[in-house]
């Protein structure tokens, strides 16, 4: 265990990987299209669900790197 008296910090360069996970799903130009379809599902729907991968990876990286 670290010495509780010495201030622990949440600062880490790795925290920046969270930023694209927040920004990318908010750019309609990326996903507001019909084609290509995946199993008949338009891009709009499957790509926005696929953005989950970015979100999960980003939070997982930050967790792994900053884990005690």
């Amino acid at each position: 265990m670290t010495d509780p008296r010495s201030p622990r910090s949440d600062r880490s360069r790795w925290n920046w990987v969270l930023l694209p996970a927040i920004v990318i799903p908010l750019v309609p130009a990326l996903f507001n299209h019909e084609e290509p379809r995946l199993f008949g599902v338009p891009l709009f729907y499957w790509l926005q669900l696929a953005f989950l991968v970015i979100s999960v990876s980003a939070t997982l990286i930050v967790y792994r790197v900053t884990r005690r």
Partner: protein
Amino acid sequence: MNEHITEIVIFTALFLLVSGMGFVAARWRRADNLASLNEWGLGGRNFGSWITWFLVGGDLYTAYTFVAVPALLFGAGATGFFAVPYTVITYPLVMLVLIRLWSVSHVHGLVTPADFVRVRFGSPTLALLVAITGIVATMPYIALQLIGIEAVLKTMGVTGDLPLIIAFAILAAYTYQSGLRAPALIAFVKDILIYVVILVAVIYIPARLGGFGSIFDAADAKFAKTPAPGDGTLLNANNQLQYVTLALGSAMALFLYPHSVTGVLASRSRDVIKRNMSALPAYSLLLGLIALLGYMAIAAGVTPIGTDVNTVVPQLFDQMFPDWFTGVAFAAIGIGALVPAAIMSIAAANLFTRNIYKEYLRRDATDAQEARVSKLTSLVVKVGAVLCILLIDPQFSIDLQLIGGVIILQTLPSVALGLYTRWFHRVGLIAGWTAGMTAGMVLLYNIANPANNHAHFGGSAFPLSKLGFDTPMTVYAGFLALIVNLAVAALATVAARRLGSAEGVDATRPRDYTADAGDPEVKDDLEPAGST
């Protein structure tokens, strides 16, 4: 005899099973004494990763979400899909914020977001405003859970108010007895049922309807026939800004809701929260699949019962599944309403107890008295929710919930930014809150919805043309209100400092925000850690 008898029997059996679990939950994880808010209201503050995942997942993704989001796609198309980006970005957005909230709350024994504002800014007034905002935003949300149950009951041909009252009375009784342990235990059953039902639904139903290709074609055909300009299976130039600001605004608002905070604070350590930020998106995937049920309902030719568009998903299940599985699916929705309703009423009760009762009515309240007041308040809150649905037009609750999202966002400067900076002056935050609330109300009041004949409070998409911009684009009203809030808070902060207005006392220290389980400052339970 009712043609839905099989469904009703299975629904009732599963409902009674989880009700039994709710009462037994008081003994789960060895609580020697439920007479404190840490135990009754936060389940001992000792939940590991799995329990937190089920609990927070069951809390955020409610029965109402499961019927309302597909109903949105059924009615308007792509704009309803905002729920997916919203629940995708919220976890990376709040991850670092929540662990700070966890730390400072565990060091100072805080139970509610308003508790934090109290110790951070030394302002009981600001804490009161945050508490009232939380209670007002949560109440209609609880009422909406009843709409989820009601939609299912309607589809099964069960009419009258009595079944709804019985369901909520049972819920009220075991929440009173077991506190947060009840929804935590029930969440296991609820979520497993939901996962099974949805996975079956998204494989079985499209197979019967000729695949996703023809489902989307049917949706396209429906929207092409309607005169409304904003619908369709893709966004258009005018609603993209609304889509994005609504997703972002909702993502920022989600963890400001008191019931979300309750779930987070009940966890054992910062690592549990971080791990859940990667695990909770599993529910977002589920939500995305559920949303598509709206289009499946279009393709299957489902018509809502009366004008209640929330019945389309239950109707779809009823039409597609064999009776016994429809019963299971309905139970999943019904039980899905119980978990969030329980947590929300606990969170609202905690706000009342900590930030109104203890602050203003009885300063020397003991732990046991706090727990007793919270338990009674949780009953009052549920009775209020039932009355809301039975006596007032349910549409009123839907309007209120819409307002709820906008107003809870106005606590962001005090709660979320307050976790990072003490720059804002308490006077500035109070001024910002007042301005943001006023702006939000004025904006919402001026949104009309011709589709359901609402002249006011017709939605959250505010037309920018009303602000004098020459554009048909719309934007999320809560987002605009938050900008007003922040601007006023900043200006009033500068003004208050110039005038030498007294700063409140900040009782927190920088290291409180990074403390973790095991540190001497963190008040740990004496119980063993339990399972993860």
